[in-house]
């Protein structure tokens, strides 16, 4: 299987799906000649032409609204928001409109659209270009929030997202764009709403998303040499969340740590923990249930500060050790 980057995997999915389904089109800022702020849509204008790679003015709300309108008429738009932070400019369209249309109109409308948005810190983009807003988006039933952590998942989830009849927020991570992994060249999908055990283990369940999956896997590998076996679960879809998979895992391991880059207060770790603690799996919990999340601050610019604002491998390792060794 060829090894490609996370960014290339997403491009491959878009490319292949546009070849397969002529209803699919792209729209967003600078996605044409420039090739997208991160180069993700590079080459696509030449291949598909201006009619299917639409460069838009800087009008995030209307970019998303345009996708909605086109989706209502049976198109399959894939909109790009240059940074996830800008989703806030279009949140009315996403949250008040797209998320609610199917429900509010009594099941008579469908809005099959994808909004891509690279989030996360680590690139020195500071407070307004580094947020992880996935927890915010999880408050809008009707939306689907997917969040791939590997190139393989990114392609499979993108193909699923475009074919899904609901509005999908496709949350990418800037730091992951350059990570490489094996990705099949052909067509395959990863089901929406299904978590994956990225690494099985008996001692503790760690639920993590996007870049935190990678970090946790590195820690798990290290701890494995000392006999601590960490089970790493990647929800892949945050809304709807595959609570079942997490419950099953915690019932086995008796310990749970949730790791995410999004700010701690109101972050989705709380949702995972509440789901577990309030379920029959409560009786299998054998250590405090913990979360490790981004600090409750805007992401700072300075490299050191930026790093300290979100969980790093050393933090994850320390937390896992304390839980497994019964020190907390």
């Amino acid at each position: 299987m060829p090894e490609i980057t996370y960014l290339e995997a997403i491009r491959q999915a878009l490319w292949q799906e546009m070849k397969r389904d002529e209803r699919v089109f792209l729209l967003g800022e600078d996605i044409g000649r420039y090739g997208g702020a991160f180069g993700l849509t590079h080459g696509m204008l030449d291949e598909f032409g201006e009619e299917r790679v639409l460069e838009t003015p800087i009008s995030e709300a209307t970019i998303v609204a345009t996708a909605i309108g086109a989706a209502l008429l049976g198109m399959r738009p894939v909109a790009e928001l240059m940074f996830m932070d800008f989703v806030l400019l279009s949140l009315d369209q996403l949250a008040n409109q797209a998320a609610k249309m199917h429900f509010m109109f009594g099941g008579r409308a469908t809005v099959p659209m994808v909004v891509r948005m690279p989030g996360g810190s680590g690139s020195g983009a500071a407070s307004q270009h580094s947020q992880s807003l996935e927890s915010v988006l999880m408050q809008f039933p009707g939306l689907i929030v997917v969040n791939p952590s590997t190139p393989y998942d990114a392609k499979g989830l993108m193909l699923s997202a475009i074919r899904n009849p609901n509005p999908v927020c496709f949350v990418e991570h800037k730091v992951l764009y350059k990570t490489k992994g094996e990705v099949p060249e052909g067509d395959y999908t990863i089901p929406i709403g299904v978590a994956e055990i990225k690494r099985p283990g008996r001692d503790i369940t760690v639920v993590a998303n996007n870049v935190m999956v990678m970090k946790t896997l590195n820690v798990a590998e290290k701890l494995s040499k000392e006999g601590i076996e960490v089970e790493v679960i990647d929800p892949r879809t945050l809304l709807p969340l595959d609570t079942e998979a997490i419950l099953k895992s915690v019932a086995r391991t008796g310990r749970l740590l949730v790791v995410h880059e999004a700010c701690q207060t109101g972050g989705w770790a709380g949702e995972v923990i509440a789901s577990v603690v309030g379920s029959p799996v409560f009786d299998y919990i054998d250590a405090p249930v913990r979360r490790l999340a981004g600090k409750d601050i805007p992401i700072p610019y300075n490299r050191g500060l930026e790093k300290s604002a979100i969980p790093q491998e050393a933090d994850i390792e320390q937390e896992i050790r304390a839980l497994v060794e019964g020190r907390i």
Partner: protein
Amino acid sequence: MSKGQEKDIGSREQFEERVKQLGLSDDTLIGVYRTMCTVRHFEYMADKLYAAGKVHGTMHLSAGQEAVAAGISMAVCPDDYLINHHRGHGHFIAKGADINLMMAEFLGKDTGYNHGRGGSMHIADFQSNNLGANGIVGGGIPQAVGVGLALKMQKRKEICVCIFGDGAANEGVFHEAMNMVALWKLPVLYVCENNKYGMSMDVERASAKLPLAQRADAYGIPWACVDGNDVVEVYDAMKTAVEHIRSGNGPYFVEAITYRYFGHSKSDRNLYRPKEEIEDWKQNRDPIMRFTKHLLQSEILDEGQAQEIDAQAEQVIVKAVEFAEASPEPDVSTLMEYVYA
């Protein structure tokens, strides 16, 4: 504010000449009259039902604005798309919606257009390309860009009509959408239904320069500003606009000046406008009254016929209430349905 001056409707000859120019048959005119009566009765019935405690939420009534809805429907095709604002009963009726299903939705019944999930503010009928009313002021304006884009991509002849109020013209998305729709020359007819007040805010206090329609100039969109209580004048403007759009020339912007009789919503006590103003519009500029006068003057209808049509329209509404009241409530067991397709 003008005081107690009845609006001069002009001579019989002028009216007949104009109607002839526009190619409007007697049957069409009678149909328009019927539509306006139906809308008026729907709104007054809604108010009555509300007072009787049969309506759970709120509602936004369009009594007084019937000519805009009727004028648009005369100019467009049944398959054209409609994106509407929250004061939308009239436009839906004019577009040919099933009154029974509308009333059922208004009363929150399972037989309603939205299975009781939307209510007055969100009635939609996707089968007749009615893409629904929006509860967020201006929320539909940018969506019309997408509908227009899809129509263009799909190389279809239909257009998208997007109606919004004077208040919505001050939302940021208004400008984003005007720019993009013009940039891409999309088949969208924007209708600003200016009823003078954005809730309580007078349009003159809210907008730096009037008429609102001239904002279209900034985006190179042709525009017109018309008397929204004169159904023929509304039709005239809409006809020009629709022809322009359907010929592939891109969007068009029409502002129709009108007036609502009821408050913004049920909680409105009309503290921001004098009673005399409301009475003036009701007594001297009412769209149905003006149009009826023309029809009588030109002997298209006699008084008895006019009254009969009006009574028939009322019956349609009474029947719709019967249908709605007899309809079942949505089953609570279906609560979680329709969240995801």
